[in-house]
Structures are given as structure tokens and as C-alpha cells.
């Protein structure tokens, strides 16, 4: 497959400019670049979701032009999206044949075909399992199978490893090698350099919407790739000197939250593959599953406590319980020696809890409102935003300008809506806002998700800075490097329980990964004979 001179313009911005890539048949070709570099746009063009303004695409030497994903599928191109597109309440078989009923019917023939594909590439897919019982890695394999079932010769995988733990990533790479061995072509989009070097045969680097170079994975190092990718060295999340004090800021004791009614998506994303275990999980659901199970933790002044875990294992619920958005069934929370268990959200925020939400569009911003109103959000009762119930727009605007300046929010002014900023700049605004009220305790949920490298470094700096001044931080992240690099203490959350703890100085991402799938519990020993940190084992939940 060859791409030549692909250019795509959006109003005001050139998303792709003169891109040229040649993908050899039967290889894994990695496409790397930081967030916002234009990778996803390029893939949408390849998959027929968007039309390029200029340039040509050729497959097997033949020029093609796609006007819809249907055209792309007909030419043997298949895409596995970052967010899975599966119907939870259907079986694997039903999901695979959905929309492709004409190929092999919906009965025995289809089942046979699925088995055939699954065996040929070692996917290990069970056609009759319900998708809602499958873990993330299994769902991904179903997505891959779905694409192969439709006869794809070229697979596009958009950030496939973002949702996987290291062990699952290795399994995925084994699958990819199988596919390659069978003569299929894989285009692999990522910004994780280590993974790319492990699996790719060729690497193309995209920066600011254009191809800036190619690399040979046999000789290239992550450092070289990083420099190509961002034009400079990658920032590291490393926190050097410890600022942990022995003054407890946040204490959580025995927090338990039961699932009430039907709340949609199952949280058993990391369910093991063997059917007997699956059955147990379902029983628990019926009995009012524990979303948080006796969670106890202490965060001290100047300490960053990181929580590792596959998404959906209770992290969201923990945050909501701490913020006061959900009332726990039992357990207590105290902040700075004061019991806040019964306080409403606003009182907790006034009491010094800062909040960088997991989903900034849903919980952190008013997208249609101007920046200065977003600066007021969440702190409407505090100075400088209001006095005695009356807003002070002048002071709020002035302070917004300060935040924009100090946190380097790239915007033409404070009257534009939050929606028109890029993700990184939105996040910087949120961080700036939360830090402006001198919080005692900060909840940082995925603080650098979807944020470009430059903004990432600034956000890390801001958190470190505040920690030095005695801030207690609860860090929840899917980025294990970020967790290990920033945290003073690490806990692992699995099915609503804190199952393990670790010292970030010695732990490896692999060890953390296995604890995240529930394979390891207790204290994870990274290296040898590190002094026990007594302060956290006395909580008694780490077993």
C-alpha cells in the first residue's frame, strides 16, 4: 500500500500535509506521533471516513478512492477502533456476523468460519460467550476477528495497547505476529515507543501533520524515536526527592459501595477467560456487587498516592465517593482531621479538595461557556469569583487571565468557549483552576490523558510543585510510567478492593500489570530488601 502527498485541511488548520507512506505487504508497520500529530485523521482517510483534499492512495499498485468505510472494507481494509464497537448483550458470534450476515449466514457456517479464523491466528475466541462477560483483551480479539471475518488483508489498529496491561500487550503482539506470518498487513498506531520497537517491521514518524521520517526498529532507540516525534527530548514523570510528611491529610476507612440497580456497563473488564470464573462474576452481579470493597487508605501531606488498576475496577467510584457525588454504604472519610463523610460536594470543595476529573468534558468544563466562566465552575462560592452570593466577573476574568498566562493555556482570549481549545489546553486550564484555590488534597484522575507531550510536562510540574508545598494527591492513571514516576506510594485496585501495594522506586510496569489483573496480591517486592514502609501497611487492607 502506498500513500502519496495526502493533505487534509480542516477550517483553519491543516491536519495532514503532504504525507507519504509505503507499507510493505506482510509486515507490521507502526505509525507513531504524539497526540494531535494527525495520526487519527490519516487513518480515517485510509478507512474512507474522510476524503483527502489532495493526494493518492494505492493498494497493490492500483489507485483507489474511498468515499465510505464500506468501500475500504471491500478493498480489504479493516479497522479496529480505540473504543470498541461491540454490543454487550450479544454473543461473540452475533457481534461478528452483525452487518455481515450475507457472508456466511448467521448459523453453523458462520460459527465454523469464526472457529477457523480464531484457530488460524491463535485468537482463542469462544463464539458463544456473551461480550459483556469478556475482558478488555478478549473484546479486542473479537474486534480483530470481526475485521478478519470480513476478509480484511490490511488491518489498522488505532492505539490498541492503550487499554491493556503489559501482559495483555505481549499476547496481542503474539497475535499480530501470527497475522503477519499469514501474509496480512498490519498498520499499528501508537505513541508508546517501547512497544513499537518490539513489534514493528517498519516505523513512520508523524509530527505536526506530516511525515518527518522513517526508522528501522532493529537499530533505532526509543530516544531517537522520541526526538523525531516531538522534535526534542521526552519529558519524564520522575519525582526525585521525597516530600512525604507524617501528617495524615486524607484518611479513608472501610469505604464500601454496593451496586444499586442496573448501572449499565459491567465492571468486570479484567474477568479471566475461563468460564467457571465468569459464572462466579455473574452471580456477584445479581447479589448487588461491591463496587468498593472495604477500601482504606491514608494520604499524608506532601505525598502522592498512585492507584493502579485496569479501568472499571472501582477507581471511578472511589473518586465519586471522595467527592461526595455518591454516598457510600459504609465507611468514613476524613480530611485534615475533620470528618467529611456527610458533607455535600460543595462543602468538600470549599474544604480544600481539588479535582481534576477523569472525563474533563463531562465533569470539568462547561464546553459552551467562555473560559472565564469555566474558571468559576466548581469554585463559585470562593474568592475571587464571588462575594456574599454576588458574582464578581471582573475579578474572575482577571484571575482567568493570570491562569492562562501562568499555565500557558494557548488561547486567543478568555472569551472563547472551552470547546474551541485543544484537549491539552483545556486540561491546563482545569489544573490551573484547581491549583488556584490552594487545595489540601487533590484528586488527579488521568491528568495527562489525551494531552500532548508539552502540556504533559507542564501538568506534571504543577502537581510536583504543589506536592512540595504539602499537597496530598490521589493519582489515578492508566499510564503506568506516569504512576510509577510520580507516586510516592502505589496501591493496586482490583474489583473494588485494594489488593496490593508497592514501592514505586523498585517496581516494574510488568509486576504492576500482573497485580492489576488480580494475579498478584499483598506487598509487591520489586527489588530486594527495601525497608518496609510501615505507614501504609498498618491500614490492614493490603493483606
Amino acid at each position, binding site marked *: 500500500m502506498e500513500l502519496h502527498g495526502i493533505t487534509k485541511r480542516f477550517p*483553519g*488548520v491543516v491536519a495532514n500535509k503532504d504525507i507519504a507512506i509505503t507499507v510493505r505487504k506482510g509486515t507490521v508497520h507502526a505509525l507513531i506521533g504524539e497526540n494531535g500529530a494527525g495520526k487519527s485523521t490519516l487513518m480515517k482517510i485510509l478507512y474512507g471516513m474522510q476524503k483527502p483534499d489532495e493526494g493518492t492512495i494505492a493498494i497493490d499498485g492500483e489507485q483507489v478512492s474511498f468515499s465510505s468505510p464500506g468501500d475500504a472494507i471491500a478493498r480489504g481494509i479493516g479497522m479496529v477502533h480505540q473504543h470498541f464497537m461491540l454490543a454487550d448483550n450479544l454473543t461473540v458470534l452475533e457481534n461478528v456476523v452483525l452487518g455481515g450476515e450475507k457472508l456466511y449466514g448467521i448459523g453453523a457456517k458462520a460459527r465454523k468460519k469464526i472457529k477457523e479464523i480464531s484457530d488460524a491466528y491463535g485468537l482463542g475466541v469462544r463464539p458463544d460467550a456473551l461480550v459483556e462477560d469478556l475482558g478488555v483483551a478478549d473484546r479486542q480479539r473479537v474486534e480483530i476477528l470481526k475485521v478478519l471475518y470480513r476478509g480484511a488483508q490490511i488491518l489498522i489498529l488505532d492505539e490498541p495497547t492503550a487499554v491493556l496491561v503489559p501482559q495483555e500487550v505481549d499476547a496481542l503482539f503474539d497475535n499480530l505476529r501470527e497475522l503477519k506470518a499469514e501474509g496480512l498487513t498490519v498498520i499499528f498506531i501508537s505513541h508508546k515507543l517501547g512497544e513499537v520497537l518490539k513489534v514493528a517491521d517498519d516505523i513512520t514518524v508523524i509530527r505536526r501533520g506530516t511525515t518527518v521520517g522513517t526508522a528501522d526498529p532493529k537499530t533505532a532507540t526509543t530516544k531517537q524515536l522520541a526526538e523525531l516525534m516531538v522534535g526534542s527530548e521526552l519529558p519524564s514523570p520522575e519525582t526525585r526527592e521525597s516530600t512525604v510528611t507524617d501528617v495524615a491529610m486524607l484518611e479513608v476507612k472501610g469505604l464500601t459501595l454496593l451496586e444499586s440497580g442496573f448501572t449499565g456497563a459491567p465492571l468486570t473488564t479484567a474477568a479471566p477467560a475461563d468460564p467457571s470464573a465468569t459464572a462466579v462474576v455473574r452471580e456477584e452481579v445479581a447479589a448487588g456487587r461491591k463496587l468498593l470493597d472495604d477500601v482504606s487508605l491514608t494520604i499524608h501531606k506532601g505525598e502522592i498516592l498512585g492507584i493502579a488498576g485496569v479501568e472499571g475496577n472501582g477507581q471511578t467510584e472511589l473518586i465519586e465517593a471522595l467527592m461526595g*457525588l455518591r454516598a457510600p454504604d459504609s465507611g468514613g472519610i476524613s480530611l485534615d482531621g475533620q470528618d467529611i463523610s456527610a458533607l455535600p460536594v460543595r462543602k468538600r470543595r470549599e474544604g480544600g479538595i481539588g479535582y481534576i476529573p477523569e472525563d474533563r468534558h463531562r465533569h*470539568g468544563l462547561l464546553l459552551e461557556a467562555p473560559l472565564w*466562566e469555566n474558571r468559576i465552575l466548581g469554585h463559585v462560592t470562593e474568592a475571587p469569583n464571588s462575594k456574599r452570593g454576588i458574582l464578581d466577573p471582573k475579578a474572575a476574568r482577571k484571575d482567568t487571565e493570570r491562569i492562562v498566562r501562568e499555565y500557558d493555556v494557548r488561547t486567543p*482570549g478568555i472569551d*472563547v468557549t472551552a470547546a*474551541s481549545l*485543544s*484537549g491539552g489546553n483545556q486540561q491546563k486550564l482545569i489544573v490551573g483552576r484547581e491549583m488556584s484555590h490552594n487545595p489540601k488534597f487533590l484528586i488527579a484522575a488521568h491528568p495527562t490523558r489525551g494531552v500532548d507531550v508539552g502540556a504533559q510536562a507542564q501538568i506534571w510540574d504543577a502537581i510536583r510543585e504543589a506536592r512540595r508545598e504539602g499537597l496530598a494527591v490521589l493519582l489515578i492513571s492508566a499510564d503506568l510510567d506516569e504512576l510509577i514516576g510520580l507516586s510516592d506510594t502505589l496501591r493496586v485496585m482490583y474489583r473494588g478492593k485494594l489488593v496490593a501495594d508497592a514501592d514505586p522506586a523498585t517496581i516494574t510496569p510488568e509486576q504492576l500489570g500482573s497485580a492489576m489483573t488480580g494475579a498478584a496480591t499483598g506487598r509487591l517486592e520489586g527489588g530486594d530488601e527495601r525497608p518496609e514502609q510501615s505507614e501504609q501497611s498498618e491500614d490492614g487492607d493490603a493483606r
Partner: protein
Amino acid sequence: MMKIDKDKLLIGAAGPVLALVSSFVLTMLVLLATGLDPIEPIQLMIENAGYADIQVLIINQTGIYYLAALAVAIGFRMNLFNIGVDGQYRLAAMISAVVGASVELPGPLHILLIVVVAALTGAFWAGIAGILKTTRGVSEVVSTIMLNAIATSLIAWLILPKNLGVQPEGSNDLTTGEIAESGWFPGIDMGQGNGEIYGFTFVALALGVVYWFALNRTRFGFDLRATGESESAAQASGVDAKRMILTSMLISGGLAGLSGMPTLLGDTHTYSLSFPVGVGFTAITIALLGRNNPVGILFAALLFAFLDKASSSLDVEGYPKEITQIMQGIIVIAVVVSYELVRRYGTRRQQQKVGEELAAGGAIKTDKEVSA
């Protein structure tokens, strides 16, 4: 920055203008299709509006619409659709008329009592929908529509002579009895038999100022607007969503209750079967057209009052005066369509601007933010 502000103003005005122009054109097409002169009725209406007595009628009607539209708008600002303004308005007018007729107090106190009873009755009726929504999750659209129907039946029953009503001698009408003169709100007499402007019209305008201040300059208003823009973000910011729903429903109902006051205190001094109905429904259109903005609503209310009052003599000239209702109906549709068009255009334009300025500064944005 000034430039963006100017743009904002232009884009803000573009929606209503587009809606009005297209509805005028469509109404003319309807007239043409029925074989009538499309220009003359409009000429006649403009001519009518030149008479002082019609002007007084228009101003009085504007005050009524203004109050009812504020009631709708406060709900709209937080994504609550109070379709029940009409029922709240009628029930409040009736109950307050009954209370007003049954007592006699010194002037200002009498008026105050009637006004307070009206506001409380409206708030109570809307509050039922609010409580149903916060406790049982019942959609306020459904419950307020049903409460309208219940209000109609309740009024019909209450106004029977065996209950609270009175049947004036030699009349088919039923009333709630005349309110004593101490409970009449003084108006401004325009002389020469032109009628008087209801005093309560000025209260309505003052409430418009209060509405603006409460919404834009108080914490409560910020919380309310935030809830309307994103309930999840507002909750995370510390707004108690349930309380907010109930509070704004009560305020909306209270304002709806007040919208019967200009007529009751300034004109009829009693609630009868011929008390004007449908005000609450027209108010929904007015709030939409006025973009929930107190100044915008004022102009929209004025326009609708003009359409109502200036069209009364069209029948005499051989034109059906219902054409103004057709026009009002078309405005509803045109408003929804044109506002969405303008909103999309505005968002695109702003993102383009941000993109340009940032591109000049060397930054690049992802496709998502630009195309979204």
C-alpha cells in the same frame, strides 16, 4: 478580543432576524396560495399599530407575555421544559381572584396579598412537577402537560356556584366575584378613551431586570446556568441537582402565577370563564425567540403582542386574522431551525479563529477539536 465580541453580537442577532424574515416570507406564500394579496394585511396591521388605543393594548399584552415568557425562560436556562406555564397562570389567577374578592384590606396590602397568593399558587402547581421529577424521575414535560389538563378541570369545578363561583345576574358567565377597589392596581390613563396602561406592566419590566441580575450576577444564577449547560459538570462542581430542579421549577411557577396579574389587577378584577387562555403556550415561543435573554424576550413579547392586537380589524377588511396565528406557528419552527444553523456556524467560526491564531503561534490542533 473586541472583534470576537462584535461577532458574538452579530451572530446573536442573526438567529432571530433569520427566523422572522423566513416566517414573514412563508406567511406571504401562504396568503398567495390562498389567492389573497400578501402585502395588504401587513400594511393594515402596521396602520392599526399607529392608533393610540391599539398601542395601549399592545403594551398591556406585552407585559403579560413578558412575565409568562420569563417563567418559561428560567426553566429553559437549566434545560427544564415547563410546558405547564398556562395551567399555572390560570390556576393562580383564579385562586388569587377568589382570595382577593373575599377580603378587604388597605390598598397596598390587598394588592400584595393577591400577588403573593398568585405566586404561591403558581409555584405550588409547578412544584408538583418538580417533586415528581426529583423523587420519581418523571419527565417535567409530561407532568406539566398533564397538570395543565388537571388545572382546566379543577378550575371548571371550583368556579361552579356551589363551590367558589358566582353567577352574575342575567349572565351565562361564571366569575369568582369582584375584587374590592382597594385591590386594584392603579394604571396610567392615556386619556381620550385610549384606555390605561396596566400598572403591573412596570412590575413585569422590573422583574426582567431582577431576572438578568439573578442569572448573571449571583452564585445561584451561575449554578442554574451551569446545570443547564452540563448537569454532570455542575454536579461535580458542587451543585445539588435535585434541589436546583425543584428551586427553578418553583421560581418558574411563581413567575407564571404572576403573569395573570396585569389582567386581574388592572382590568377584569375577577376571574371568569372568559379570562384569556393560552398565554403560557405563546410564552414558550416568545422565550425561544428571545433566546431566554431578558431584552430579547421583551422584543419578542412586543412582536407577539403586535401580531395579536393589530390583527383584530383584519376580518373587517376581508382577511382572516388567523394569518397571524399561522405566522406565529411558522416562527416557532423557523426559530428552532435558524438558531441551530447560526449556532453551528458560530462554533465553526470560533474554532477556526482559535485555530488560526494558534497556528500563527506554531501550535497545532487535533482534528477532533476542529471538526467537532
